[in-house]
């Protein structure tokens, strides 16, 4: 997929001024956060699970070669085939090849983030094969010709009205022209249109939330049932998955699943959690005749054992996005590539190169909420800081922040001067706010105040207020 991460600042600015987007983000509100909170409150063993989950992943990563080989062997034993891809191109070549062999003109797809990562839809289209996204959110953004803006809720940036307009435009060919005003009407129309596609498709492509070495199974978690229809109805089922998805046993997978749905949507388990092992058996009356798993590296072996290694524990639950104040303000598209939010700000520079996404590691206040909610205990702020160190080493930090930081550094080691400067600044800003408590415009901070007000200081610094109060208390006591 093409990236626009290089223009992050501009993207973010546009996002803040996009009223439709801001309305959609407003509607998201604190839904994900509240639901996750409730699920965690009902699960006293959350911290224990979190520790065990990290241990499982670290154990697996420490023997990744062996577990991948065992997985491969077990897929083969159950009648399936494993393909390996180092690069996005290799991954899409394999899948296009399989589709061509099957003479497929149309393929149905379940949601796959690694599919987005390798540009699978573009590759299929170039080969004359039509990919049909079946997850409702993915289907909506496919009609809109946009990338997903959230890893579990791809169309979170779209309002109901926008979706209705898209359906009107694209469904007229099926004779569906009635206005869609309600959510049920929208969902029903998508169900109706996609039902035929499920039944006609020759190939179904899904992602995998986990791979199980013990059995050679791939695990798929959905709520809509689209993933299962994609996996079960066509003649060929292709699973695309990145190599770090493997875990040793069914029990290990179960433990991680307990964290996944709760962290993502606050559900204890999704409506459908399915384990696929090989193609249909001889006596089965349905299911695919062929089962292929495409294992994708795409830079992950480079992360193994280096400072970004903890990122390989990520299970793509989206909790860090949902809890990120920056993501909440600008949505996912501003990040410019497949993965948005804190996990995206770590992954994107690793996958497309830091020079292609130099602003992403800076797009964080390092408030730490992401690390706090991460079910796999990934220290996201630390990883963002690692990127920042690299940027500094490469002299890639822009002139303005560099000068600002140099100025701040100069003051910070001169406490007397620092206090004097703060005092001046506090008074000036207070006076400029004329008692309204906020500022619409501040010189040199136009970027900040363009889409929000700066809270104005109350007129004195903390130290001054403290000294005044201490003096008053002393006087009162005397």
């Amino acid at each position, binding site marked *: 997929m093409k990236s626009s991460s290089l223009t992050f600042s501009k993207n973010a600015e546009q996002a803040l001024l996009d009223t439709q987007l801001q309305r959609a983000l407003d509607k998201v509100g604190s839904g994900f956060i509240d639901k996750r909170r409730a699920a965690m409150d009902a699960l006293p063993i959350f911290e224990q699970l979190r520790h065990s989950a990290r241990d499982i992943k670290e154990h697996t990563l420490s023997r990744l070669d062996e577990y991948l080989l*065992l997985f491969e062997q077990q897929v083969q034993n159950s009648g399936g085939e494993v393909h390996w891809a180092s690069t996005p191109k290799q991954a899409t070549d394999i899948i296009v090849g399989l589709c061509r062999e099957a003479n497929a003109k149309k393929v149905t797809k379940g949601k796959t983030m690694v599919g987005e990562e390798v540009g699978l839809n573009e590759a299929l289209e170039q080969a004359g094969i039509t990919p049909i996204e*079946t997850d*409702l959110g993915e289907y909506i953004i496919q009609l809109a010709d946009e990338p997903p803006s959230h890893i579990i809720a791809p169309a979170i940036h779209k309002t109901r009205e926008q979706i209705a307009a898209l359906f009107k435009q694209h469904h007229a060919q099926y004779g569906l022209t009635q206005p869609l005003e309600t959510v049920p009407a929208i969902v029903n129309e998508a169900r109706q249109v996609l039902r035929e596609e*499920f039944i006609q498709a020759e190939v179904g492509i899904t992602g995998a939330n986990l791979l199980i070495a013990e059995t050679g199974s791939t695990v798929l978690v959905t*709520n*809509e049932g689209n993933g*299962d*229809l994609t996996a079960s109805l066509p003649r060929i089922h292709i699973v695309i998955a990145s190599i770090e998805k493997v875990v*040793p046993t069914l029990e290990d997978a179960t433990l991680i699943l307990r964290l996944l749905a709760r962290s993502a949507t606050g559900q204890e388990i999704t409506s459908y959690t399915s384990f696929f092992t090989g193609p249909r058996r001889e006596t089965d009356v349905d299911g695919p005749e062929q089962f292929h798993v495409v294992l994708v590296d795409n830079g992950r072996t480079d992360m193994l054992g280096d400072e970004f290694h903890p990122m390989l524990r990520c299970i793509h639950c989206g909790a860090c996005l949902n809890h990120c104040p920056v993501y909440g303000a600008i949505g996912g598209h501003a990040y410019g590539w497949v993965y948005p939010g804190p996990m995206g700000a770590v992954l994107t520079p690793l996958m497309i190169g830091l020079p292609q996404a130099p602003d992403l590691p800076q797009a964080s206040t390092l408030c730490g909420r992401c690390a706090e909610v991460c079910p796999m205990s990934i220290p996201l702020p630390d990883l963002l800081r690692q990127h920042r160190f690299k940027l500094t080493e490469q002299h890639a930090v822009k002139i303005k922040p560099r000068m600002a930081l140099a100025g701040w550094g100069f003051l910070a080691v001169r406490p007397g001067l620092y206090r004097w400067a703060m005092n001046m600044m506090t008074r000036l800003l207070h006076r400029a706010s004329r008692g309204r408590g906020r500022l619409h415009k501040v010189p040199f901070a136009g970027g900040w105040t363009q889409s929000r007000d700066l809270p104005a200081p109350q007129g004195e610094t903390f130290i001054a207020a403290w000294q005044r109060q201490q003096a008053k208390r002393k006087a009162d006591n005397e």
Partner: protein
Amino acid sequence: MNNARESILARIRHTLHGDDKPYTNEAVVQQLRQPSCGPQPNWQEDDVSRFISKLESVAGSISRISSADEVVPAITAYLQQHEIPLKLVTASSNLLNKLAWSGDFMVEQRKAAGTDITVVTEAYAGVAETGSLVLLSGANSPTSLNFLPDNYLCILRRERLVKHIEDVWQRLRDEHTGLPRAINFITGPSRTADVEQTIQLGAHGPRRLHVILLE
């Protein structure tokens, strides 16, 4: 064919072991021989109550019956209550095959088609922890039945209800050699929240899910 497999494995081995020789470690074999259960959720109430409360919390419904003779009346009552035609596609099982459907029913045993309205299956297991039904693909139990119809009715025998998800794995290891093509954990009807985070049932799979618990 590319050499991606060898290059990926070599890179991993180089990082992990400092060389690119293949390793087979006893620890891996051990891990698989004795799969260990991590922490599991616990609850106060009995397993049936837990199963029902979890099922109902995800918009599933339930009829409780005490003999196989009551299956058909329970299904009839459910279908009539929701004004669903008495036309069914069913899976095959000892229990399902013995049901005495009245003349008002049209019943077929086959895999599902896109236009089927109502399906009846029998679950391999139920999970009290989550209120889930577990269905295995097989000659008698086509996977398409679980996802294509509007109304999904599933019979669960009490002795097939287990506490935790891991108990299903244990049963499978005891009762089967190797896993079937598909194991579906089904927890409530199909749903989506992709339009403005509003939950809507019946996205692509069943709109309704009803369990008949035979105790």
